[in-house]
């Protein structure tokens, strides 16, 4: 009888400690992420975390055109993106960005289970900051393609993107409000700023400077020009180095090197042959807007036969069509300049711009630009912004943002085989469809297009 009672007690105790008993893995060779090393390895997955960003915007912007012949060889999706078709569906980009979100969430959940010691706290912080950065960085891309442009007045009523903050695949994906989407990006990045080291030896690892840069981009998209300017400045305080284009070999097939001194955080888009040096033809007005002494004219562009120009200035240093869309100091100078201008600090705005442009012009030829008022300064800065950030994925985001301002609103046009296509400012087609299978499975609301 005593034995029996003992056994019953033992069983009950066992059930009480059941959770731990059942936590044991069923297959010993399964690598369940549990260590800082595992988290590091997850975030070091370059192809998932750094190299699958969308090129959709670059296919729809006004910096280029393609020939009719080439257009006809394109896949339906690429054609649709080029002519801003109502039917365009870009589903891989969604999948890839949320794959990065999943990895970041898995990293965060793994870190939650690890109690850092005094010896590991700095690594723990850096990894947590990195995971938050990556998540926000992916959310930013998704918000820029799959949600309406941010407008403070209406953001709380409009739909944003689904904010997946856990790895549980059974959790139903629900669209957050546009306001919450951008607030999540801001809060993830702000926390990352607290945790990340000022700079990293490897620019494909997130750093505090990168988080500042991402915050500057985020606030720019939210049209909060005070914050955007401050964060661009914070970023530049950690790294303000600029390349002198005079030292580059403009004749090279790509004059730039991977992870060059201007790169603060390295990421690249998926490859798109439409954007390759032979197929992407620079808008002639844009090309002509570069002065003969502007070294970007030769460093960025390759003359193709027929008097057309392709883009060879990929900041990722390769000749592939996977273009750099990471954070670099030149973009920070431009954000700083734009925000100063918008905040009526004309002198500082022009100083920031001139500091950048000096390095872009043939030595001794550059005459510092001036502006009589904030409006003129802004116009100059935005023109230079477009000229500096060719194929950096920023133009599409700028169009979304600037279309709201009548001074900069622009109707885009394309002509294919005599057929004219237009994209007026603020058109619904600036926002892409959420992939149809996502709508089918989750029942979330589709975008209007």
């Amino acid at each position, binding site marked *: *009888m005593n*034995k*029996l009672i003992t*056994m*019953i007690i*033992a*069983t*009950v105790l*066992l*059930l009480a400690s*059941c*959770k731990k*008993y*059942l*936590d*044991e*893995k*069923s*297959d*010993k*060779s*399964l*690598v*369940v*992420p549990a260590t800082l090393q*595992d988290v590091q*390895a*997850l975030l*070091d*997955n*370059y192809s*998932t975390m750094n190299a699958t960003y969308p090129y959709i915007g670059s296919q729809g912007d006004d910096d280029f055109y393609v020939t009719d012949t080439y257009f006809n060889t394109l896949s339906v999706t690429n054609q649709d993106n080029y002519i801003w078709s109502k039917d365009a569906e870009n*589903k891989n980009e*969604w*999948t890839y960005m*949320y*794959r*990065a*979100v*999943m*990895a970041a*969430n*898995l990293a965060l959940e793994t870190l939650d289970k690890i109690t850092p010691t005094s010896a590991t706290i700095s690594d723990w912080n850096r990894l947590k900051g990195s995971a938050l950065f990556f998540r926000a960085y992916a959310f930013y891309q998704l918000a820029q393609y799959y949600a309406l442009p941010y407008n403070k007045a209406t953001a709380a009523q409009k739909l944003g993107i*689904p904010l*997946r903050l856990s*790895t*549980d*695949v*059974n*959790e139903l*994906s629900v669209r957050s409000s546009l306001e919450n989407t951008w607030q999540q990006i801001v809060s993830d990045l702000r926390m990352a700023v607290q945790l990340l080291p000022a700079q990293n030896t*490897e620019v*494909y690892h997130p750093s505090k400077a990168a988080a500042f840069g991402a915050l500057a981009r985020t606030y720019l998209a939210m049209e909060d020009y005070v914050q955007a300017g401050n964060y661009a400045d914070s970023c530049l305080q950690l790294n303000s180095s600029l390349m002198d284009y005079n030292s580059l070999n403009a004749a090279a097939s790509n004059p730039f090197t*991977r992870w060059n001194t201007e790169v603060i955080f390295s990421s690249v888009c998926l490859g798109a042959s439409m954007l390759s040096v032979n197929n992407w033809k620079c808008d002639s007005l844009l090309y002509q807007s570069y002065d003969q002494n502007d070294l970007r004219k030769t460093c960025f562009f390759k003359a193709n036969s027929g008097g057309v120009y392709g883009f060879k200035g990929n900041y990722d240093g390769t000749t592939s069509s996977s273009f750099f869309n990471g954070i670099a100091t030149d973009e920070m100078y431009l954000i700083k300049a734009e925000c100063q201008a918008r905040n009526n600090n004309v002198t500082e705005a022009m100083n920031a711009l001139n500091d950048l442009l000096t390095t872009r012009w043939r030595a001794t030829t550059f005459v510092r630009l001036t502006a009589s008022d904030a409006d003129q300064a802004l116009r100059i800065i935005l023109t230079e912004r477009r000229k500096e950030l060719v194929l950096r994925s920023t133009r599409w985001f700028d169009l979304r943002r600037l279309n709201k301002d009548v001074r900069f609103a622009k109707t885009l046009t394309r002509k294919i085989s005599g057929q004219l296509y237009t994209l007026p400012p603020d058109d619904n087609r600036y926002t892409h469809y959420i*992939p149809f*299978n*996502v709508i089918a*499975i*989750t029942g979330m609301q589709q975008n209007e297009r």
Partner: protein
Amino acid sequence: MCQKISVNARVINEENEPLAAATVIIKNTGRSFATDANGNFTIKEIKFTDTLIVSAVGYLPETVIVSRIPRPESVFNIILKHASKLLNEVIVNTGYQQMAKERATGSFEKIDNGLLNRSVSTDIISRLDGVTNGLFFSKVDAAPSLFLRGLSTLRSGTQPLIVVDNFPYEGDISNINPNDVESITVLRDAAASSIWGARSGNGVIVITTKKSRYNQPARLSVNDNITVSQKPPLFHDPGFMSAASFIEVEKYLFDKGYYDNQLPYPMYYVLSPVVEILLKQRSGQLSPAQADDMITSLSKHDVRNDYLEYLYRSAALKQTSLSLSGGNATINYILNIGYDKNLNSIIGNAGDRFTVYSLSSFKPLPGLEVQAAVNYAWSKSVNDGIGSIIPGGGKSAIYPYARLADDNGNALAVEKDYRLSYIDTTGGSLLLDWKYKPLDEINLADNHTVGQDITARLSLKYRINDFLTAEAQAQYERADQSAHNYFSQQTYAARSLINLYSQVTGNTITRNIPLGGILDQTNGLLSAYSLRAQVSADKKWNNKNAINAVAGFETRQLQNNFQLIQLYGYDDNLLTFANVDYISSFPLYGNRGSASVPDQTDLSQSLDRYVSAYVNAAYSYKETYTISASARKDASNIFGVNTNQKWVPLWSAGAAWKLSNESFYHISWLPFLKLRLSYGYNGNINSSLSALSTIQYYPAGSPTNLPYAALRNAPNPDLRWEKIAMKNIGIDFATANNRINGSLEFYFKKATDLLSPAPLDPTTGVTQLVMNAANLAGRGADIKLNALVIDNTIKWNATLLFSYVTNKVTRYLLQTGNKGNYPGTGYSISPIEGKDPYALISYKWAGLDPQTGDPIGFVSGVQSKNYSGIVATDSWDDLVVKGTTRPPLFGNLLNTFSWKRFSISANISYRFHYYFRRNTIMYSSLFSSWIGNSDYDKRWQAPGDEKNTSVPSMVYPANSNRDRFYAFSEATVEKGDLVRLQDINISWTIEKLKIKNVTVKNLQLYSYISNLGIIWKANKAGIDPDYGGSIPPPKSFSFGIKAEL
């Protein structure tokens, strides 16, 4: 007269246990009394002439004449015998409790000892074949698989849970000696099996081992038998392609120049002797006449003769079992020892098994019973034989005129991996001999597996009061198995690998695999424990109400370790081995590129843990109405954390109504009629999946040059068991005197949450995941009829089993590629929404082109000879679904005739309404891989042939899409229906035989003949469809003796 007296007595069972709540009725007055906790009862006033009827649940009623009861004070015991001894009173075992089938609400199928011993086999499970209603044995794969009431899963195991006594048996079930088994209960519906929870989805087979009894004199019994089987009927293979036809094709291909591209690559392409002769003729080494002579003499050989002479023999199996049992008032025991020796039909393959089974019970204190059981099995199997010769070098089958030995019986070399004429001479004398002589290999081989399995169980049972019993049980099982495959340097495997990794430069040879043998040593270790604490209640009151309930907790762990070690340069005598460079890549001999040394070494470990709680209760009123309910909750480390936390049990409910007990029931010819109804859920698990997020490491890559990890398995905290809901309606009946009895059961199954790959919302970060996503529906009927047709000096007993079952996939989310991929053999599960999972899908057939003999199919509903288009079609219009390869109708008819001491029984099995695909000629496989088929002889050769044949013409070059289209078209579908004489058992029994001083209580001589063949079949192709295109097993004959002392 009429003197009133008082009576004191005690009611006990044969184990000396007092029976509480037994009913004592005075026959004349109908007054009833109940016994107390100690089984005692007292009747104050009773007539001396009265009669008492004493009864208790599970026991035979006993009639006691009052005058026989001694008076006054001495305790008189009334012993009730177990009801199980009564004909028709069937006691079923769920593994948690035993109950009378008559009072159950669930669907139980009991196979008693007599039926189990009708057949002879080393394993217990195959003895269920043909005698278990609703259980289908599929033999289309090498190892038979069991399906109880059809299919309940798509990707998880289909085998029913096998329970030995009270716990699932985790080891190899072939370790259980059938002689140790008393009976088997098959739990078919939810009310019967859902107590087994998450592992019961495929049904449960409960094996009850033999037990002894208290107060039983010592008993010794012997069972000894020998089984002899014929050699496999190789000549009955209707698909065998003759040597003449094969050579005809070889000559045809030779003339077409088919082999010319292969000549420069002797290390890639094996050539047959005929092709070598033709080459010599072409180069002038042989005259046409010489070549013709040589080829003619080759064509006279049939490799099957050599197979039967050198590779096969008559199989023999010898089985001996000894059993000793007995018991006194407080202790009982049984000890069984068994030894089996098996010589397989493949020469060089054999097996031995030694088993010990022991179970003892004793009662150290009143109310307490301790039971200890040990089951030990040792087995060894030797696998040195060669069942069939696979040449390799691109060839999957041997050419039909191959010779394994010369006229004097000396082993001959057969083409293997590389061209024989090349390896004969290459490398000078530096390489090891590179020839493959199958007959030598049998003698050189040293492959054996030794296994041991020990299962020990201890249980304590304490009777708390007259209706409550507490029980605690623990079981530990440990099984190890080690496979020793040693390839000495003389074996082809070792010589060939050493040669392949050799480099010859001039007169020197470098060996990157050292000389010596190769050892593949596999070690598996299984250890499992189970602990259970259970309380059961059994109470009857007011003579009308009875309750029977169990509740308990259980925890189980199963751990599997596996290691494979490979050693080169190994010497089995000295246990020495050489170190090998596994990293570097070495050039392979004969310009075969380069590769690193094969390294098979592998380690793995798995661990399954379960924590469960269960309850099962039944309440009966007036023995007429019974309701039952059960619930079980399992938690496991293979489920997701959410699943473990949710308190959602698998449950069942059932009701039974014994109509024949009702006062309004007046059908005299049908004195027993009972209706049963049950509904509930069972689960099925798949421990190969993980609910946890797992990652996989990758080596450093561009551009970061850092090792990294990627998600391998997305976390699925909701991962759970597959859920099978089953509704069961049953009718049990018996005619007067039980001449005809039986049951009819109808069931409806709905399996949901089946694990299957499903597309996921990409927002989750994962696009596809194996998850609980598919559904399957099934329904069917199981009918069983027993009839005592003649009850005279000659007795004729007939049992008819009839089952009907269909399955349909009702939800399957993953879209595969083209529908043109669906046609196949139909033997593996192919989930397509709305179809049977074993549907036989074919390309639509439009006959042969009368001009060319080309097969014609359909593309988008239009007749076509665009074969790549046909096999890649994506339209159901171009396909035909013809039934299923699983017979929806199947069953057996078992007739037993007995006359005096003789008894003969024959089991006839039948399977109807199913289809199968016969093998046919595929020219591309014939040309490149030597896979022939006798359909070659039936091929279209001239216009007009299309009227008599569907076999397409031979074209050169062969078109594999054309071949695939024909082979998987409607034209190769055959009806499977058949009736088979499964086996015959003949026995001669004598009771009480006195030989000198020894009394033999029971002596039986028996014979068992199985695989007797097909009585009737629908297909005219001469194929036994139940063996999936392979040759059916030969007839086997067993003779045995059973004696009990």
